[in-house]
């Protein structure tokens, strides 16, 4: 039942919004993964970002796609929490450490998902920033890829979504959106240098000529 609802939600609502009302120009679609496990890392300016990433992957992969999302934001109330978990299919993570003894690894659920061969949508800046501006990539993405040298990480840069639905706005205004898909990168053995590698690739994509 929930699977059907999720499928219908993406087929009848999300895709018409992203493909017709917005309209996507996708560059290098052929680079995208055809199976899991994989991670798509993208810049984050709008709630639309997640929906666009869902739309550039084939619908048959839908059951495998899991956006990684902040618990504090999406679990604000029970309706939003239910919707986020079952329809969007998020993996909730804690953004701030509580500092309590024996605290679980915040990325534990992500690791389990990757072990199941799922495709994670991950926003390595940690939050939605100013439109068209990259924030510093945090080291979380490197911690996730540690000990997974086989795992492909696809850097993606999206233009225009921060204009279509900026942070704090509820009215969607149509804009064409450019989605640039980069070559996948793999774990290189060191947290800081992998973090920097992902950041560099995303910045390079953001500077590609439209």
């Amino acid at each position, binding site marked *: 039942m929930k699977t059907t609802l999720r499928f219908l939600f993406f087929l009848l609502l999300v895709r018409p919004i992203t493909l017709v009302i917005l*309209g996507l*120009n996708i560059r290098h679609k052929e680079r995208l993964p055809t199976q899991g496990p994989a991670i798509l890392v993208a810049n984050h300016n709008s709630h639309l970002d997640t929906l666009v990433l869902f739309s550039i992957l084939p619908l048959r992969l839908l059951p495998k796609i899991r956006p990684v999302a902040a618990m504090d934001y999406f679990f604000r109330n029970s309706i939003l929490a239910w919707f986020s978990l079952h329809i969007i299919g998020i993996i909730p993570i804690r953004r701030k450490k509580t500092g309590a003894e024996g605290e679980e690894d915040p990325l534990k659920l992500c690791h389990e998902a990757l072990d199941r061969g799922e495709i994670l949508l991950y926003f390595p800046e940690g939050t939605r920033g100013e*439109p068209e501006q990259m924030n510093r990539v945090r080291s979380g993405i490197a911690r996730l890829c540690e000990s997974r040298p086989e795992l492909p990480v696809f850097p993606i840069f999206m233009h*225009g979504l921060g*204009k279509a639905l*900026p942070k704090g*706005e509820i*009215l969607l*205004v*149509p*804009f*064409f959106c450019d989605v640039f898909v980069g070559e996948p990168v793999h774990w290189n053995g060191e947290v800081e240098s992998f973090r920097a590698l992902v950041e560099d690739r995303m910045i390079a994509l953001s500077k590609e000529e*439209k």
Partner: protein
Amino acid sequence: MELKSSVVYHFSIRDVQVFVMNISLCILAFLSFLAFKEYLSLIPTRRTDHRVLFWAYLTIPIQYYLIAKGWYGAFIVFIPVYAFLFLTLRMVLIGETEGFLRSIGLLQWGLMTTVFSIGHVAYLLVLPKAGNPHGGGFALLLYLVFLTQINDVSQYWWGKALGRRQIIPKVNRNKTWEGLLGGVCTTTLLAVILAPFLTPLGRWAAVGAGLIIGLGGFTGDITLSAVKRDLGIKNTSAMLPGRGGILDRIDSLTYAAPLFFHYLHYLYY
């Protein structure tokens, strides 16, 4: 019995016509939407104008509703009077004065070309049948769009074959006097040949229509060239591979359509 069946037949043809007309208007409205969206995606917009842009989009269904109803008076004033004044007010109320004049100017030019001008193509469809007994609005639309396209192509080929003297190299290096002259003559010739089949235009009136479409198409083309030069881009988008974006396709119509429409309207409606 026979009479009854002919009445039923008559009604169903009319229904089909209305249906086809509404579908055509929806397609043209969608074309306006795509073109306006492409325009907004190209120009620099201020973040504070988010809601103004939302209102600007709403003019598209309203304008096409007025067209579908055939309310000529409302169709002709809605965008340049009501929408322009209202959007300006809405932008003023946001209260950001830096870049205000530039933003409202950019927005109005976009609506003018992508919604108001292209709306004229659509209004050809709802003109009274009596004005063009040959084929009604569809024939007029075909005449306009076909000649505009022919004009683009023939100006290109005449320019390729004979082009020497550039007209405005700073805006568009490919436009030459030879191309323009050859293209306008070709278009005018075809306008005269096609007029008796598709339009109410007499021979000399068709010469006028050909000149209007030829010169109007040229102007629309170089105007978009100037816009693209200003924005530093080559094509308006990669939406149609190898052919640029929607605006690249309809640039000539943005001038040719309203000019042709009002010429025709003045003479026959």
